[in-house]
């Protein structure tokens, strides 16, 4: 079979599966964080079973060994079928997997990878309150000691913006083992069990009512040296593997979901009797065009990745265009909905275009701030794609 035929066969297969199995009531079943987590666990387990949960893993794992082109087909279909996004298992199957796969010891791999498929979830302990976009400025301190004859790190500090850490079993943790030299040096990468004494987690109340993120407080947390990935002080390089683990599929998936969700805007226009309002039709038309373009750039980005043609900055463009369109989409909803949208409605945890327009609107800021703010992306585009000069390092007040 040709590649194309293979892909189309896969597409039919996924479609058939989804037609039979896809959850339809998941939004109503995700009105609380706990219900959302349960919905996520169930759907992840079903996808693992069906072989669609970890297409990017090696082929020794059931459902693994898929090409990026095949992964794209699977995600496209999941998006078009409007299934729940795999948010809870996202860090486990992408970030934890990539870190383990590329940098961990065989013992670590053997210990953790199968458990991910059984539903163990991970969180990421990278960001810190003072660091923000400047990740390398992290301060969470680990001191190496011998306790009960065992070499351990004793960790103190605080992490923030850790996705669903309140439900996580394990954590990908960046700590500072030295403050000598450039700030990237002296960073060490640990795998931390969230049940270790001294770990406490506090969910972050987001302005739209979601609790997607949490803070992690580390108070004399003892982590065996065996839980380190890579060498001491070389954690920055390992973190790059973690961060590079997923770039492309999510934005493609989200863009297709936004295109699907344009029907919500159409419903709103009709509900509010604006079908004859030419200004509204123009604004809607412009939004349709913009969302189409975002789908196209997300597609193109993935296609380039598949062909090995990705350049620095490409991902920044996709992310920026997506967040711009999401903003326009949700703002139009808030505007057209009028006063109705100012009354609080039940939110859907973990979804971006729910038709609860104020929630969606506020949530859209997560995309222009988190994971490298729009401002940082613009710097990357200007300096690394367009080769404009960087700001000098010595430029300090």
């Amino acid at each position, binding site marked *: 079979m040709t590649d194309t035929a293979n892909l189309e066969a896969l597409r039919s297969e996924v479609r058939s599966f989804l037609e039979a199995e896809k959850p339809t009531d998941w939004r109503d079943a995700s009105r609380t964080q706990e219900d959302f987590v349960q919905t996520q666990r169930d759907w992840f387990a079903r996808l693992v079973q069906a072989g669609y949960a970890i297409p990017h893993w090696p082929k020794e794992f059931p459902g693994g060994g898929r090409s990026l082109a095949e992964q794209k087909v699977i995600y496209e279909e999941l998006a078009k079928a409007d299934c729940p996004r795999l948010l809870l298992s996202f860090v486990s199957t992408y970030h934890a997997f990539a870190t383990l796969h590329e940098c961990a010891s065989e013992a670590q791999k053997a210990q953790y990878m199968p458990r991910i498929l059984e539903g163990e979830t991970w969180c990421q302990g990278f960001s810190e309150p003072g660091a*923000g976009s400047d990740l390398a400025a992290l301060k969470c301190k680990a001191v190496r000691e011998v306790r009960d004859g065992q070499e351990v790190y004793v960790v103190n500090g605080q992490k923030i913006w850790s996705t669903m850490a309140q439900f996580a079993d394990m954590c990908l943790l960046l700590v500072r083992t030295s403050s000598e030299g450039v700030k990237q040096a002296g960073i060490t990468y640990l795998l931390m069990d969230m049940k270790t004494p001294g770990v406490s987690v506090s969910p*972050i*109340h987001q*302005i739209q009512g979601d609790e997607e993120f949490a803070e992690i407080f580390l108070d004399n947390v003892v982590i065996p040296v065996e839980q380190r990935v890579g060498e001491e002080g070389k954690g920055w390089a390992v973190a790059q593997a973690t961060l590079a683990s997923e770039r492309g599929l999510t934005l493609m998936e989200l863009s297709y979901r936004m295109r699907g969700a344009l029907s919500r805007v159409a419903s709103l226009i009709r509900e509010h009797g604006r079908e004859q309002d030419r200004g509204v039709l123009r604004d809607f038309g412009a939004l349709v065009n913009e969302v189409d373009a975002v789908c196209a750039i997300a597609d193109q980005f993935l296609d380039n990745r598949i062909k090995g043609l990705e350049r620095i900055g490409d991902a920044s463009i996709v992310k920026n265009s997506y967040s711009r369109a999401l903003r326009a989409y949700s703002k139009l909803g808030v505007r057209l909905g009028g006063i109705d949208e*100012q009354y*609080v409605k039940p939110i859907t945890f973990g979804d971006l275009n729910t038709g609860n327009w104020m929630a969606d609107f506020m949530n859209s800021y997560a995309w222009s701030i988190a994971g490298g703010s729009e401002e940082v992306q613009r710097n990357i585009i200007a300096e690394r794609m367009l080769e404009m000069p960087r700001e000098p390092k010595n430029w300090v*007040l």
Partner: protein
Amino acid sequence: MIELNELTDAAQKAFPADKLSPARDASWELTAEMGWMMVRLPEDDGGLGLDREASTAIHFEMGRVLSCAPLIPAQLGLQAVIASQTLAERADWLERLSAGEYAPLHMLPANVDVAADGTVSGTVGGVLEGDMAVAVVAKLPTGYALIPTDAEGVELIERPVWDPSRRLFDLVLTGYAPDPALMLSDAEGAAALHDILGPEAHLALAADCLGGATAALALTVEYLGMRKQFDRPLAMFQALKHRVADMKIRITTAEALLWSRARDPQAARLQIAGLKALATDVYQFVTEEMIQLHGGIGLTEEHQCHLFMKRAMLNLQLCGSLDWLNERVGAEALAALS
């Protein structure tokens, strides 16, 4: 005569900038103590007889601290009573209201029907802090009416809103028989009363917006000066400085229009409606920038950014949305410029 800056100074002292959204009931008491319900009451009625500029200055300051006390609907309710030609016990009501009893004007449309027997059923929208109200000033098809909240066939139902600095209620009428002694106008007089109250509402909301936007800008500048990234304060990054400058430009320009309209007793109804449209637009712009420039912290409930944004979003809808007002301003300007 009381000078404007005395009012402003007193307001800033009573409601300091570092205490956002102070508790509602205590604020309301303080508001009454400050005599702010007397500000627009004519001297003949025992008030201070000050003009729009004075009330605008107070609403601006209350916007700045995201006040939860419903001074705007209260003042509008009072003005409806002041302007009423038909209210039986007008003097009595004026005394009660200026002493702090709360009879707000509703700030969203009423959708009510009058039955053959004269009873009224339906919903009067946008009653702010309805739980505090002894009566609501409502625009009924038969004219403006004071509707006691404890009357038969009258119910206040809370409609929770995103803006945590406000509580919004629907006044639900079910076969309510309006008390003729409590009518503020008849059906014909309602238009004239509406022409008085509409500009007052728009001016007050515009002041609330621009006071809030001013505070949002100050907090943003402060945050950028304090927060460091890549070893320097965010305030040193030119791209952010330019965005903050744009916030300043838009706020200052809209504020110039605010005071110009507040001082001009001849300002036309739609000129003030246009001001409200502009001010809400600026407030939304400023709060969006505030969130973005605060980064992650701005997305958390513990930080104050979202309070400004949610208030801006609700203000956009009260007493006419941006779309609605701009369309009317445009249509009227088109007709006038023939």
